[in-house]
């Protein structure tokens, strides 16, 4: 797999503008595309999905920098096409044939497990406090209760918030993604001064 090309700041800016398709997302589109690519490679059971996602994005930035523009597909579709090639190359690469034995998770002792859970709970509390009151209420309500009752409950919640069910699910998933990232960073941190910014 070709590696080693580093995007210049101007090439990266051009890429962000192209990905935004005329509406400045403040980098949100880039983060969302990276998340989708990582999930794609993860579902394909690749090792290091984050590296493959970065390799895909890097190739797109390079092509855009060299060509000036890409008109044969929408930005998202073009990213998919490149991701597919990156995946096929991955399948032929040494990485897939010399796959190391996956990490075996060493089970924690009961005390350590309780401590780990408590730490994650503290982190979640902390991260929830970084959300606005409305967002906090929305995510707690959206994921509350039994699955079988969720459709009706979420429909009622959407009506109460005054948005469509689709817009509600997008908002809830976005908030959950932020919380997941925040809790993961917080619980991995040994430092008690962790102060995430969820804005």
């Amino acid at each position, binding site marked *: 797999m070709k590696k080693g090309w580093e995007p210049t700041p101007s090439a990266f800016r051009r890429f962000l503008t192209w990905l935004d398709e005329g509406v400045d*997302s403040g980098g949100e589109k880039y983060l*969302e595309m990276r998340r989708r690519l990582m999930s794609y490679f993860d579902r394909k059971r690749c090792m290091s999905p984050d590296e493959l996602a970065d390799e895909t994005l890097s190739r797109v930035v390079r092509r855009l920098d060299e060509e000036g523009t890409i008109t044969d597909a929408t930005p998202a579709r073009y990213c998919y096409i490149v991701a*597919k090639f990156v995946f096929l190359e991955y399948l032929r690469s040494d990485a897939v044939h010399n796959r190391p034995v996956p990490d075996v998770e060493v089970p924690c002792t009961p005390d350590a497990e309780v401590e780990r859970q408590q730490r994650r709970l503290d982190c979640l509390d902390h991260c929830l406090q970084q959300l606005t009151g409305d967002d906090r209420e929305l995510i707690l309500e959206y*994921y509350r209760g039994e699955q079988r009752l969720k459709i009706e409950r979420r429909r009622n919640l959407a009506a109460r918030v005054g948005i469509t*069910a*689709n*817009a509600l699910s*997008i908002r809830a998933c976005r908030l959950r993604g932020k919380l997941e990232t925040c809790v*993961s960073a917080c619980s991995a941190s040994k430092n008690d001064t962790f102060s995430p910014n969820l804005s």
Partner: protein
Amino acid sequence: MSFSTGQAPQELRLVRYLLGSLPDAEAESLDELSIADDEFAAQLIDVENDLVDAYVKGELSGETLDRFRSRYLSSPAGREKVAFAETFRSHQKSALRATTAPAHKPGLRAIALPHWVPPWALAAAALLVLAAGGDLLVENLRLRSQVNESRASHAALEERERQLQKQLDDQRAADAGTAKELARVRESLAQLEAHGAANPQGGKAGLLSFVLLAATRGVGDITTLTIPPGTEAVTLRLALEGADFPSYRAALKDPATDRIVWSGADLRATSKGDAKALPITLNANQLKPQTYTVEVTGVPARGAAESVGNYPFRVVIR
């Protein structure tokens, strides 16, 4: 209750996709959508979150549970999502306990005295306690009575809150029914007007107008638009339920091929009383007798565009 019960077919298909159970060709088409289609990507992550939550709540069973364990949990990212879901569930459970648990009853605690305190001091203290005991007992009884009264009032208030919440829910359900009925009436009216417009005596020949509601997930009814031959243009008024963006984008798609038949950007909503709608006008010759979907995206002044909804409809030319 198993996770699969009550799931829409599309959700079950996405669950199978997430667990690697779909045939390769079908999975590949969803691979593309998972990256290139905003709405699909959003739906996929919603289903994934629900699937993980269902696992944590013990709602998965059979093959779904087996596939989840062997496939989903084999990925570090999957395990991380499960760990988060477990933490989130613990948080919700403890929040629930905190709101429902009875007040803590204080018990007697052993008092450790320093070794230098002489025994007579203890006796003197006991006498003082006995002297004050009568007053304390009375005070204690009074406080206990107040606590009981307070608990009774609290229970009554909670009951009242439950009643009011139920009334509100009933009212909301009735409002939603009324809104649907209103939309149906508007649609029928639009159809009647359309027939009138198609009639040479009705004036304004060749222009039709319809009101469309956003599809609700899990509900399969599709509005049918009857277009008389000779119609030149069709205006679709897409009801915006609560969405409020400075501008919108819309794409008319053929769901069978996912081909975009028409698209418009920088579209503005119009208001009529409390009702907001996004009008789009199409050439009637663009519409064939088949099913279509209009996908509407809200474009904020700043930040990422958001999907507002899908408006499926069926065209009948008669």
